[in-house]
């Protein structure tokens, strides 16, 4: 049973099924709301905060908030876009992102968003943290320099009996992703491949494979992030 409800995004009348998350509802109406930690079909977590919109004047993450009848949503406003840009900049300075040398360049959602939001020089000074590259797993290379702590791998990669393969350890600025030593080793090739694919940046990479698609022909080399939604 579906109930269509009405709401507005930046004054534009939209319709969607009640209970749809705002980000999906916007997509169905041809409106792009940038996301980074969100993965379609997996329970959202609202970690990156990039999809923040104002719902009836209050900041909410559109990946976790269901639409309701009569909602007035602000999305593409200078205020919100500047916050999004600041979030992207902060993610850049928090890690060590050297795009030209990164396997994920051109397919990287962080990079694509930085282009979309016209990031030039981050407003925050670079932190240049020392982070490790962990190649101990037989299936994956884990590069903490590039990890933006979006939790996609934690939420999407589970064993057949539902156990977590990835997890956050510590807290605050010390958080990092760990892979369960046992389950990480037992991971199937398919699951490892899925982990690589869902990572929005180049933090999870396959072993012994790389640069299969030449630079220049990669996903966001061809069209900017979000344009597929806006074309509809």
């Amino acid at each position, binding site marked *: 049973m579906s109930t269509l409800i009405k709401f507005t995004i930046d004054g534009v009348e939209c319709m969607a099924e009640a209970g749809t998350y705002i980000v999906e509802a916007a997509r169905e109406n041809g409106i792009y709301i940038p996301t980074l930690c969100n993965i379609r079909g997996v329970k*959202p*977590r*609202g*970690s*990156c*905060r*990039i999809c*923040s919109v104002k719902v009836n004047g209050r*900041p909410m*993450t559109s990946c*976790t*908030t*269901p639409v309701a009848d009569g909602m007035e949503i602000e999305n593409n406003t200078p205020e919100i876009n500047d*916050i999004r840009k*600041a*979030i992207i900049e*902060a*993610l850049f*300075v*928090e890690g060590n992102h050297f795009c030209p040398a990164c396997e994920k360049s051109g397919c990287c959602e962080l990079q694509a968003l930085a282009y979309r939001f016209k990031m030039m020089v981050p*407003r*925050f*000074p670079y932190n240049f943290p020392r982070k490790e590259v962990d190649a101990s797993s037989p299936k994956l290379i884990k590069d903490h320099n590039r990890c*933006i*702590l979006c*939790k996609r791998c934690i939420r999407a990669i589970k*064993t057949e009996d539902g*156990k*977590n*393969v*990835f*997890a*956050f*350890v*510590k*807290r*605050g*600025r*010390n*958080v990092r992703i*760990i*892979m*369960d*030593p*046992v*389950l990480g080793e037992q991971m199937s090739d398919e699951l490892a491949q899925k982990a690589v694919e869902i990572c929005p940046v180049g933090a999870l990479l396959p072993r012994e494979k790389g640069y299969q698609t030449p630079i220049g022909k990669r996903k966001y080399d061809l069209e900017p992030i979000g344009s597929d939604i806006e074309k509809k």
Partner: protein
Amino acid sequence: MAMQLENIIEKYNKDKTRLMDILIDVQSEEGYISEDAIKKIAGELDISLADVKQTMSFYHFFSDKPTGKYTVYLNDSVVAYMMGRQKVKEAFEKETGIKFGEVTPDGLIGLFDTSCIGMNDQEPAALINGKVFTDLTPFRVKEIIQDIRDGKNIEEMYRSDLGEGENRNELVRSVVRNNIRRIGPVLSKDYIPGRVIKEKLTSMTPEEVIHEIKKSNIRGRGGAGFPTGLKWEFCRKAKGEKKYIFCNADEGEPGTFKDRVILTERPKLLFEGMVIAGYAVGATEGIVYIRYEYMYLKKYLESILQGARDRNLLGKNIGGIEGFNFDIRLQFGAGAYVCGEESALIESAEGKRGEPRDRPPFPVEKGYLDQPTVVNNVETLCSAVKILLNGGEWYTTLGTANSTGTKVLSISGDCRYPGVYEVEWGFSVKDILEMTGADQEDVQAVQVGGPSGTLIGPKEFNRLLCYHDLATGGSLIIIGKQHNLLKDIVTNFTQFFINESCGSCSTCRNITFQMKEKLEKILDGKGIEKDIDDLVEWGKILKVSRCGLGQTSANPIVTSIRNFRHLYDELVAGDKDFESEFDLSEAVKASCDATGRIPVLN
């Protein structure tokens, strides 16, 4: 050890939602949680190793290596510094020969910093093997370390009488003082345990209870101020197999300690409040989530719960009300301020990292174990008992029209009588200063509502404590003129938020840190006017964070700029408009040292 571990896991029925309890028991038995223990726990609970580690590594009081036979956690809150913490810390380091964060080579003593332990009225204070030591001085530190070396047990190390009231209880035996300075409906001794259950609840329907609470207009006392009656009603109407009442006794806001006093002196009132809430919403289980720092009250609180069971104030058919079954258990935290946020608290109680949840859904619909859950502050639940006893109408005669009732304040800092004061809403900050014997000529600022609140100066001392002016969870820190407001207070508070961020939101993880770096740049005399404006702007980014911690973590900086802008202006070079943080001599120092050359920099 292996046997003990098995017993611990068995004690909690191999239930993975009780992971916190298991880890707390292992930590307290072994002094740390070893890799072997982690493996064993993961195996027995049938969860991944990574799962155990993600919970364990989140909490300050869990450690993966030994923390010493005697583990000292010295509070590093602002008021501790105001009361001489630095000298105490130095004395600990001098007497032990180690730095904070280390353990002596013989494994005897470990020294660690810790966030506010709820003893601001008797600082500097420390937890040593879970027992509280207050009013520390370098002299006392010398004695303590000598006593440790002499192998004394914790109680043999006390040099003062036990504190007053229930601090003297055989099950508590603590030197902590209550410092109750002003009483009202919550703190008054005029209370007969169980009376409201037996005389009122028995003749009221749950709806009537909710109606009475609504009539009183009481709002949540934790700080957010949500109407309590409404919360209970939402939960009553929510569908679920089982409903829960949580008491949030995780007071971690630096400067607040009133729940410590209520838990010590009025636990029966609190538990009766939980029973009332349980009756009103149709819950069968109550859980008191208590911060780890108050572990010294555990045995005592458990004995009170047992007493209530024995007198039919908990358990089956409570007070003779047919079919009304409700019991309470204690759930301890393990050192995480963010767990005071209600959904983080629920996550923690489920054995997970204390990361706040995304809302909606709200706990009243989907809370503990996904069931409808009410989370109320200690003080709210206590007040509910008095509201039922005297009527909602009576409650509205206390306080102001919009903020009814009383508030228990934790007042500390530069005043003659730090302690706990129960006042009606509507007191001005000036009243507070007079009441506590602060020298008003000498007060430069008051921090209202702890670090997440507001820093105000004398011009605003006429403002009122109430929900529509200065809303507060009850922490007031009085700051004398001898302190450097930005260096001693604002920096410490901002660092506190950095330490206590769960790290889930990119904003809270990053922006607070960036703001502190910029603040330090200004304090180093390298700031420009634009840096101050940047701080104000960056503070706005934090407003899109998920929880109250992230949303308010810029408050120390932003409210101090708003109310003490001149302190910032004095530090920046007014005539410069370029970035000035680059230090050439520092940048070339290493190479100059290596080559032996002396640079000509000008």
